[in-house]
């Protein structure tokens, strides 16, 4: 007891702990009659519960974890009971991987639960580790139809119920419109591509020099042509990809998108090589559509309202695009006659676009991290 005396005093002054207390990360995604799950459980917690360190050397190797996969599954899965209505779902373990969180390595359990019918309410009964660690918590992310909820399981509240009520189509539609708008605004590669194509629309090329375009309506027609071509093209491939008809590897898609931005910028610096920008917009629009599809897939497409969410997302992308055009065009039209527009805005802007996109391209194509992040 003597050592404890002083430790009591010192416990107060621990300068923040080496770790946070024990947590597991549980993601559940509800699709009609089944639940796709991913459960990250700390290796240190599993070792404490069932013993993973076979050779007792204080180090957990992948070999030791792999050999105990059966025991990990047998320990963890019964401690998570999902039920829909009166029906207990049956869970099947699909795969076990490794991931790292801020406090160390985690075993990642991927599973699928079938609940025997459409899920209208999900009850999650969480009993992991509470018997050996009373401060353990289970952090849940529950997604359904693009909507995400979070919850925390603790020894005091180990079971919770979630209603998976059919959301109104209107709510679902507006949510995907919202996502579409944000995606085009935050996806800098799409914005830059669009801007690069729009920069020269308020000018015309005559006698090897840039000159201010005449009237506003002809500029608008030009812009309309470019935007329409881009829209038609990316809607086409977005649909093909979202409906799982065509799939392209993401590295190829992302690198080509970066390359398209480089080319669009170069096109402004060497105008002779692209007289018809709508063709460029259409051609590369095809590849940008695959980029949008990747985002849509990350959002988790509700299978029962696939078409609605696809169309809503696309409408959102178009609205976001229109907003960019509406912000850019009047301004560019007003200053098109100034000395600085062709030199500073068009040439300087295009150079900047090319520089940025080159970095993107190098990163994506060669899988490099050029940044110190």
């Amino acid at each position, binding site marked *: 007891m003597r050592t404890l005396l002083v430790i009591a005093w*010192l416990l107060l002054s621990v300068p923040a702990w080496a770790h*946070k207390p024990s947590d597991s990360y549980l993601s559940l995604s509800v699709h009609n009659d089944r639940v796709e799950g991913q459960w990250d459980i700390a290796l240190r917690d599993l070792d404490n519960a069932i013993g993973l360190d076979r050779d007792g050397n204080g180090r957990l*190797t992948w070999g030791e974890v792999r050999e105990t996969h059966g025991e990990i599954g047998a320990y963890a899965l019964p401690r998570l009971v999902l039920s829909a209505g009166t029906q207990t779902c049956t869970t099947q373990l699909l795969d076990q991987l*490794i991931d790292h969180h801020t*406090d160390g390595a985690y075993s990642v359990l991927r599973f699928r639960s079938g609940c025997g019918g459409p899920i209208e309410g999900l009850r999650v009964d969480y009993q992991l580790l509470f018997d050996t*660690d009373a401060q353990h918590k289970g952090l849940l992310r529950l997604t359904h139809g693009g909507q995400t909820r979070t919850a925390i399981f603790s020894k005091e509240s180990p079971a919770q119920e979630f209603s998976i009520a059919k959301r109104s189509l209107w709510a679902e539609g507006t949510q995907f419109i919202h996502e579409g708008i944000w995606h085009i605004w*935050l996806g800098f590669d799409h914005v830059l591509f669009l801007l690069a194509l729009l920069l020269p629309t308020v000018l015309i090329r005559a006698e090897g020099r840039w000159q201010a375009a005449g009237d506003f309506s002809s500029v608008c027609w030009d812009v309309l042509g470019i935007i329409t071509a881009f829209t038609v093209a990316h809607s086409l491939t977005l649909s093909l990809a979202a409906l799982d008809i065509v799939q392209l590897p993401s590295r190829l898609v992302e690198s080509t998108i970066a390359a398209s931005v480089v080319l669009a910028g170069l096109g402004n610096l060497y105008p002779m090589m692209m007289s018809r920008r709508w063709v460029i917009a259409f051609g590369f629009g095809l590849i940008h559509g695959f980029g949008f599809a990747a985002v849509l897939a990350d959002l988790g497409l509700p299978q029962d309202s696939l078409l609605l969410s696809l169309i809503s997302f696309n409408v959102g992308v178009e609205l976001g695009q229109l907003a960019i055009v509406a912000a850019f065009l009047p301004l560019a039209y007003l200053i098109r006659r100034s000395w600085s527009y062709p030199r500073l805005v068009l*040439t300087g802007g295009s*150079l900047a676009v090319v*520089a940025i996109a080159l970095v993107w391209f190098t990163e994506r194509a060669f899988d490099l991290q050029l940044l110190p992040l």
Partner: protein
Amino acid sequence: MIRLLTVGSVIGWLMLSQVGTTYAEPYRPTDDAQVLERLSYKATDPAAREIERLRADLRNNPRHLESAVKLATRYIEQGRSEGDPRFLGQAQAVLTPWWNEPTPPPATLLLRAMIRQNAHQFDQALVDLDQVLDVQPTNAQAWLTKASILQVQARYNEARRACQRLARLAASHVLLGCLSDIAGVTGQSAKSQELLRQVLSAPTLSGRERIWIATILAETAARAGAIREAEEYFAEAFKVGIKDQYLLSAYADYLLDQRRYQGVISLLQSETRSDGLLLRLALAEQALELPAFQSHIAELAARFAAGRERGTTVHIREEARFTLALLRDAQWALPLAQDNWNVQREPADARILLECALTDKNRAAAQPVLDWLNRNHVEDFRLRQLARQIQEAPF
């Protein structure tokens, strides 16, 4: 042209650094020998053996009080020396059969108080301790724990009274350590130093006790501005040769104040697992403009976010310091420092609140600390300096 290109690439760099955060995906390692995790101890360590034996006892009989108290005590000790809060959750689990009883046995109440103290549930911990002391008024451990909580809450008179109860219950150095730690903050540091110096020369001190006393001496000396003396006491504490998280952080803070950043780096280079120590390492790296600084900031931000996600705010002092000194966001740091001050009131808590208030030009926010300084005659030249700066500031 070249200038344009440079500007362009700088803009690109900036944009990328905002959107370029990559999220790691779960993966399947390819090499069986790859080490994924290092555990706190090996199966052959004596501590691990003892824990294993006690766990086996409890598996057969979970209500065996003696084994439960022993195991929970081992866990709390382990938690302290590893700096790993998981052990406190495990200690709590061992005490489950008694945790929610209206009158748990005193031994489990005492441990519950320590676990609650660690979770910064100070008032609940004090209730537990008073319940223990009602039944066992001579329980030295309970008096010492109570004194330490009262001190953190800046209730110095009550804390002093709790220490004094140790007079005939524990060895004299425990009494002196308890009293001097309080005296060192409340305007009697010279007397406190004198008493503790005698204690330190006693050959009967255990290693941990020696570290404890030497660290109090070092910090009191540093607060009084006696730099060389502080250095000597820190050296004395390190000479014991037991790794101690608190000692490391106190010495790192001392070095940071002396602008001896290189010293901090060699001290803490391999201590990145502890949030508090990583914070101090990053502060030194920032001062020296080392490249590791960026990744350490990102790592700390992720850890604080992970802590918030589970809904606990035990690290709020560190988070306030991180937000002020590394993120340089006084507006965001100030409410953190204020929340922290409402829970704990040690010199370090006072300092972060004053620094935040000064940077955020908010004199009203500093007032509780200024009152605390004057009411208790706190001796700390840096706190006094900050207080003066705030009072003389034109805002």
